[in-house]
């Protein structure tokens, strides 16, 4: 093994994550390679410096309010989902009712009626086309059943 192969072991030794046998192997390597021993000392110093950095703990009230804030977020998120679904349903229903009213009205001109029907047919074709495409890709998706 060359020095390069001991770099990873150096981290394990530094963090006390090696088996007894690995420790002995690494110590033997350090004894024979002063440049690796010097590098190890540098990493040791760096580890000491990094371990000294402790982050400021937020005030207690942050933790006291944490669950309430998270719950509010959950509640609002679910609220928005329901609101959006309901709004879409109502808009579609309302739109159809308005168009139905216009088409059934004997006073409305034939051109407008044909235009509206063509618009509806176009929308329906677009919707079915997009839906079919999505379903096709979903069925082909190899990762759709991946669960963590």
């Amino acid at each position, binding site marked *: 093994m060359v020095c390069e192969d001991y*770099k*990873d*072991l*150096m*981290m*394990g030794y530094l*963090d006390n*994550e090696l088996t007894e046998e690995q420790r002995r192997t690494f110590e033997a390597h350090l004894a024979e390679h002063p440049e690796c021993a010097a590098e190890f000392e*540098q*990493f040791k*110093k*760096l*580890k000491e*410096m*990094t*371990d*000294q*950095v*402790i*982050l*400021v*703990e*937020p005030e207690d009230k*942050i*933790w006291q309010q*944490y*669950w309430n*804030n*998270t*719950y509010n*977020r*959950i509640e609002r*998120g*679910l609220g928005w989902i329901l609101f959006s679904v309901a709004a879409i349903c109502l808009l579609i229903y309302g739109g159809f009712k308005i168009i139905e009213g216009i088409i059934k009205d004997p006073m409305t001109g034939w051109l407008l009626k044909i235009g509206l029907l063509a618009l509806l047919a176009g929308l329906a074709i677009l919707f079915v086309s997009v839906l079919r495409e999505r379903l096709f890709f979903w069925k082909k998706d190899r990762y759709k059943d991946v*669960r*963590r």
Partner: protein
Amino acid sequence: MMRSQEDDIALVEHFRRGSKDAFEQIVKRYMKQSYFIALGLVGNHDDALDLSQEAFYRAYTHIDLLNSNRKFYPWFYQILRNLCFSHLRRNRVRQTVSLSDNQSRTGSSPTTDGFSPELVSERNENKEAVWRAIGQLSQKHREIIILRHFQQLSYEDIAQYLHCTQGTVMSRLYHARQKLRELLEDKKGGQL
């Protein structure tokens, strides 16, 4: 640790059956850990608080994607880190124009991801330098430093969180620490 894992699985099961209290217990158990991981990744108190809470919201709405025999926290960690990394990417894109403008005017070097020294307890020059240097690391390197030094996780746990082997953890740690050392030496103008 074992007890905690069993508790987690039981709590997740209770939550799946509709217990809001079970999810509250999960949140309270992991809120500090989540906040400090997010803080280590994004380097800003407000964003860390927001992102950690958002991660719990996403976990709440996607709990069906967690296998019943899997531990909660490693799964949750993936949500949290993805949110933090997306947040950093969005911020970088937003800052690119103004940053390049400032640099062309002042010739200053790229800043960190907002790693303010005020977040460091009992500040001194060394600690501030280390914290700022962590902010200059790549996301992958920063993540492993945070998990090892600030969360004090074992290599086994880190490997589980990052879906990799312990060998990869050691190798990534080596490169992350090497980069950190270089950044600090550059600042100091010599060896540590």
